[in-house]
């Protein structure tokens, strides 16, 4: 633990970078998935196509996708973010579309009867009611993105993976321990806090 005392700034920097890159990728993936998911909720063929393509992307091994992108975008953060977005699309699109489709038709009909426009129905009825399912998707996607960010350190995108890989290369156990355990703690913390948000949203929409 002496290593940690002397190098806590390195760990903090890694953690900060990790959070920043994961959050950026998640935000991009969420914006894309929200648009595609809303579209897919209205059209079965779009849904089938979106799930087939994002399902294919999801199956590609992380390091393979990072590697396959090198000829096109080189090393670095862009590569890492594209990979992370590719991995989150399946879960996010599926949950956005499922969440919206599960809104009872009577509720949508009633809103229409009250004179709401399609946009108002989406913003005030469908998305709020779909929120618990969408957040459940965000939870899995967030954990996935944090995990991919660890590997992405290999293509020079920074984050906690840098410590882990440096530790492996120099056979320096403290670096591995600190890097890997911090990454695990980060994943578990994000998972648990989004789980809490999910159950809070569920209780709110049940009330």
């Amino acid at each position: 633990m002496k290593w940690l005392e002397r190098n806590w700034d390195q760990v903090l920097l890694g953690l900060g970078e990790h959070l920043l890159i994961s959050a950026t990728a998640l935000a991009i993936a969420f914006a894309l998935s929200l648009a595609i998911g809303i579209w897919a909720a209205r059209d079965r063929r779009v849904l089938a196509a979106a799930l087939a393509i994002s399902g294919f992307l999801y199956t590609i091994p992380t390091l393979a996708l990072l590697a396959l992108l090198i000829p096109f975008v080189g090393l670095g953060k862009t590569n890492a973010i594209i990979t992370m977005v590719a991995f989150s699309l399946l879960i996010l699109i599926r949950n956005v579309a499922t969440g919206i489709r599960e809104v009872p038709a009577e509720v949508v009909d009633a809103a229409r009867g009250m004179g709401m426009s399609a946009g108002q129905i989406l913003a005030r009825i469908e998305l709020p009611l779909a929120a618990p399912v969408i957040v459940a998707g965000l939870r899995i996607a967030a954990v996935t993105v944090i995990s991919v960010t660890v590997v992405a350190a290999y293509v020079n995108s920074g984050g906690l993976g840098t410590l882990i890989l440096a530790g492996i290369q120099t056979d320096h156990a403290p670096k591995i321990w600190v890097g890997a355990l911090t990454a695990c703690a980060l994943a578990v913390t994000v998972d648990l806090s989004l789980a809490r948000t999910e159950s809070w949203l569920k209780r709110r929409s049940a009330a």
Partner: protein
Amino acid sequence: MAMLQQAWLYILNNPLQFAKAAGVHVSLSVCALSIAAALAIPAAVWLTRRGGAVALAGINAANIGRTLPSLAVLALVMPVLGTGFAPSLFALTLLALPPILINAYTGLREVDVDVIDSARGMGMTMGEILRKIELPIALPVIFAGLRTAAVQVVSGAVLAAFIGGGGLGDYITAGIAMMSMHLLLVGAVPVTLLSIGADALFAALQKRLTPKGLQAT
């Protein structure tokens, strides 16, 4: 395209080396998945029998295990067990356990209590109920877990290259280190095909093994 051709040529020129790497990759994945299934499915049966706080603790632990980054788990094994095939196998088995355990447990719990009651009324023993009723009904959900785990293990086995586990990941890391695009493809393309193949295989098995009476028409 030229790069793909070069990668293909590389494989043709080094068939033994490539076959060895692919062999290590497949055996790492198959062994990890088999060991994990052999441990997690009986554990799930035991947890459903046991119930209560123990089952809750087991499932919570699996849920936490599921969120841990693959590379972090592989890396943590290294200071303890060292590098090579065995430590990689150990780490990959750990990674495969949670999805199999969670799905097997959920699948078994979802079996209708009335069905089990009527089997008991017909004079079936606990063992018979498990083999003839519960496991067949839970099979689709169990296979969904195996499918998730299989894809995760094939993908994780790529990362085993970092701790000297061998496999196709070696080509990717060597390709990145030397910035040699075709060498990187020698690893990345086959491993992608392997992962998609594993996914398709388990999807097909899941479909075939679902009892006729339970198949959605």
